[in-house]
Each structure stands twice: as structure tokens, then as C-alpha cells.
């Protein structure tokens, strides 16, 4: 369990989550990096500007 630093939503994570893993937030869709485990801490991952086309 951890909270999204972007939108504040609660995220459930698998037990063996590892530092450095990139996950998404199911609410705001933000890409988050696991920066610490036990307890889990998340940071917004560096954005990968993705062209979404028209």
C-alpha cells in the first residue's frame, strides 16, 4: 500500500515490489518509480514524452 504522489490515490502493490520498478497509478495514470521498500515510497518517474498522434 502506498499513495500516489500525483493524485493521492491509494495503490496496491505486489509483495515483492523492488526499488527501481516503474509502475502506473490506476487513477491518474502517472508513471511512478519505487524509490524505497518497507515501507514503499513512490516518486513521479521522469516523463517519457509520448506522441499520442491525432
Amino acid at each position, binding site marked *: 500500500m502506498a499513495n500516489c504522489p500525483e493524485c493521492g490515490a491509494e495503490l496496491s502493490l505486489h509483495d515483492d515490489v523492488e526499488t527501481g520498478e516503474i509502475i502506473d497509478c490506476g487513477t491518474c495514470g502517472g*508513471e511512478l518509480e519505487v524509490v524505497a521498500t518497507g515501507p514503499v515510497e513512490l516518486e513521479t518517474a521522469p516523463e517519457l514524452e509520448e506522441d499520442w498522434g491525432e
Partner: protein
Amino acid sequence: MSHTASVVGASGFTGGELLRLLHAHPEFEIAQATSREYANKTVGSVHPNLRELDVRFSEPTGLDSVDVLFAATPHGVSMKHIDAFQEAADTVVDLSADFRLDSEAEYDEWYDGHSRPELLDESVYALPERNREELSDASLIAAGGCNATATILGLAPLFDGGILDGSEQLVVDVKVGSSEGGAGSSKASSHAERSGVVRPYAPTGHRHEAEIQAEFGCETAFSAHAVDMTRGAAATCHVFPNGPVTTGDLWGAFRETYDDEPFVRLVAGGTGVYRYPEPKAVAGTNYAEVGFELDPSNERIVVFSAIDNMMKGSAGQAVHAANISCGFEETAGLGFQGLHPVGAP
């Protein structure tokens, strides 16, 4: 199976949705499904998805006694037959506009008056996210208008959170599917003419403005466009708050309003194909998707809200409200999650 329910206007589009929902509902049993045109025919002859149902349409005269009566009839019918409906059922849930507004004056302004204004005090606007309390012992329930529902759900967090106070300019630009027009037929709604449109059909003066105004006490500049889908209403609200707002403020407000709501999903951003609310993501379901984007250069908040006009925007909202009124699990019978991929549902 604790309760019986009837549907008046069951051959129509939202009437068919009611039958679909009630049939799969753990607490309801369908008593009657009325149609004047198709009386005695199987419901499956009109609604091909309901061929498994062993129910035939009956005339709307001669209503049996039931726990809940749902009326899915055009504007004006319920106010005319409300005595018969209330005699037949403890709880009446009306999908039309007949009992949505609070006063005769509003019906004079937006409709052609009202023949039973004394009932307007008693009736409760169905949207559970706004009126859950009042619904718990309501006996006359008015399901909201689909465009109004989409708009209200989108804007509510801004009013709840004090980001708007009603003095701001609100522009609401809505895109809707063809089922909003009901099961009738006309040249404008024929496939050849209606396909592929972006058609302004209520550029100004849309009656749903009245419901939005009733909720928030402010006017909205509302326009609706028909687009090429059958189900769906998507409201884009362009809002200019009086003071500065951050994305964090907005997340706070939206989460505060909706975190515990079983049928509202916050969708804003991300990296995939679906980054904001989209009607096809909720087609067939009772979910609303709500999200936003902040436009700092224009000091604007753009709020997106997407629902299935016949579900969250009508029949689903009606069943949700009936669940509350009857004391059932709120989500009973409303569990369908929708489809992916899905084209233009």
C-alpha cells in the same frame, strides 16, 4: 427475490434497459412490461438481447400491484398517469423530466407547465452521488436527464471543493449518441442522415440547463452535438475559476467527492490509449468517468465526464436509486463492467 417491479414504456430504449437490468437483478422480479404497440408480443421481439426472457408486453392500462413501478415514457405521460402509478406501486421511479424540477415555475419556464405541481415537493432527483440521503425513503423518484447527469457529475467536485462558487462563466459542450432520441424514427435520425455527423442539435436553450441550474444555482452556457455513436453522452465543461488553482487542488477535490462512490471513476492522464473519460469505455454500464485538465495559459479548467446516456444517464441511475430506496446493496444488478475493445456501442 424480494421485490416485484413493473416497467411502463418497456418497448422503448430505456424501458428495454430497465428490463435487462431487472431481469439480472438479484432482488427484483419483473411483473409487467407495458407497451401499447406491441402488447402480447414477447419482449424479445423488440429487444433482441432479451430473447431469453419469458415476458410478454401488456397494456399500460391494468397495472398490477407491485413494489416498484418504473416509468420510461415520454415527457408528460407520467404526470398524467401518476395516480395510477402510485396506486399500483409503493415506489414510483420516473425516467422522464416530469418530476425532476422543484417548482411549477420552472416547468412554466422550461417546459409547457405542469399538471400536478403539488407532487414536485415530494419527488427526489435520483442522482445518488448528490441525493443519497433523500433517496433512502423516497417514494417518487425522478431519474435525471442524461446530459444533466453527465454535467453535474463533472462539475460537482468543483462546487463541493469551493473552486467554483456559481459566479463564474461555465461553458458545457456535450456530444451525444443517437439512442438519446428514443426508439422512434424520423428523417433526421435515419441511418443515412445521422451517420458520421457532428450535428449541433440544441445549440442554446437546452432543457437540461434547468437541472444543472437547480443543482448548482448557476447558469451554464450549454450546447449539445449529435455524434456518431448510439450510446453515450460526453460533457466537456470549460470553466474559468475566479482564483488560481493547481492540479493538486483538483485531484483533492475530485478524490474528496468521488473516492467512495461505487460508480464514478476518475480518469485523467496516463500513457495508454484511454487517458480521459470516454463514453465507449462505460457503454452498457452504470459507471461515470470523470476527469480534468488544467490549462494554465487560459486559467481554465477543462472537465470531462462520460456516461452511457441510457444507463448512468437514465435506467441505471433509476435502478441505483431504487436500490437505495428499497434498502438493497447499492450496486445490486449493476455490476457489468463494459467491454474492450468496443466500436461505437
